[in-house]
């Protein structure tokens, strides 16, 4: 059976969402049209407002409807620390964990030569300018522990050896990764184990 053009168009639009196939798109559309027109109106309004209103923070590049996002404009955060992450979702994850009170820089991706994503595409120049113009004393590289995330971290660490920054000390660190809390060694894959060994920490030195 074919739906009328407007319904059909909406079903196709829902299918652009990750994980939504034709069946679930149809279910969502019929739900709004049959049972929840107010909800549908609200969704349309909110979606339109976000698409038109949300851009990127001029300082950290995360998604934000203000020119400077609420984290960057919070003076109570630690001015000395900057955490570099791949995506806005990573900022959210770190914030949820309450493990970090400094500022962020969001790459919006990672270096991926085969996809044509190089230093310019992930805003490395903006990052270097930010470090130059601020009081940051430690940059924490929290890119993903994937091959591309590692390469991105190495690249940034290399670029942060800026000649004119020699006058002030700048620490560059990489988040530790390895065995998850509650994990058992025999079930951990080789790559993770390798990481946990290369990133091991001293607990006592008698």
């Amino acid at each position, binding site marked *: 059976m074919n739906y009328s053009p407007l319904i059909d168009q909406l079903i196709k639009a829902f299918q652009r969402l990750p994980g939504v196939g034709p069946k679930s798109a149809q279910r969502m559309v019929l739900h709004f049209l049959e049972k929840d027109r107010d909800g549908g109106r609200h969704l349309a309004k909110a979606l339109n407002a976000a698409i038109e209103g949300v851009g990127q923070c001029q300082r950290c590049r995360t998604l934000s409807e203000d020119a400077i996002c609420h984290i960057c404009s919070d003076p109570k955060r630690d001015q000395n620390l900057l955490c570099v992450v791949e995506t806005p979702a990573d900022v959210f994850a770190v914030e949820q964990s309450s493990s970090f009170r400094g500022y962020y820089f969001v790459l919006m991706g990672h270096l991926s030569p085969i996809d044509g994503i190089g230093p310019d595409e992930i805003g490395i120049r903006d990052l*270097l300018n930010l470090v130059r113009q601020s009081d940051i004393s430690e940059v924490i590289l929290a890119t993903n522990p994937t091959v591309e995330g590692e390469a991105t971290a190495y*690249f940034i660490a290399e670029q942060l050896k800026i000649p004119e920054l020699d006058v002030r000390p700048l620490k560059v660190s990489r988040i530790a990764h390895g065995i998850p809390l509650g994990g058992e060694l025999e079930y951990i894959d*080789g790559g993770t184990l390798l990481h946990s060994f290369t990133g091991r920490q001293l607990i006592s030195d008698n």
Partner: protein
Amino acid sequence: MVNSIQSQPAYLLHSRPYRDSSLLVDFITQDFGRVSAVAKGVRNPKSKNRAVLQPFIPLLINLSGKNELKTLGQFEAQSNSVALKHKALFSALYLNELIVRLIHKQEADTEIFSLYKWTLSELSVQVDIEPVLRTFELNLLDLLGYGIDFSVLEETPGDNCWYHFHHESGFELVDGLNNKLEKYFSSTALHHIAKKNFSDLETQKAAKRLLRAALSGHLGEKPLSSRSLFRKNIG
């Protein structure tokens, strides 16, 4: 290509998200060349094995399907990941980009696989990576049938003459006047390169220029993105 392949040695070259929980993966395999496949469900949080679907980890994979796009079945890492860091990691990403750009899908060549495997292990142990990369490039061009023909050097008239190189016509003897230009090479350097002897710095520099010229003829207009990883002080 047969419908079902078991325990095939392979390396992942590239992956990208596909649908909600899957990946589109691109492998170089030992016996079937470059193969693309769908890795179903590996992006589920419950999928334990996903961590090994990374470049540079030697894998054993099962593949099925009649079409060009295969389905990835079971897979496992043959050993822990190769410990590649800094420039060695950038170099390995450069190898992957070269392979994706130069080797067509299902162009089977077990020697290319062996060359790739050997080069990765060299990158993980050698301090001086330039000779490793030049050796890879020379051998890859040979295996693809684009090998640089050094036979002209056998008739070199004197000790120090100069050659112009073009990726299609090869070497041409010239007088030494233009030796500062990008595509001119001394016979001394070329003799070393032909023997894959990169011990002196002059030869290394000449080899880099020569291979760049030879590769660019086959890569087309689009520059290699991985070269930007080696740039210093970009901002």
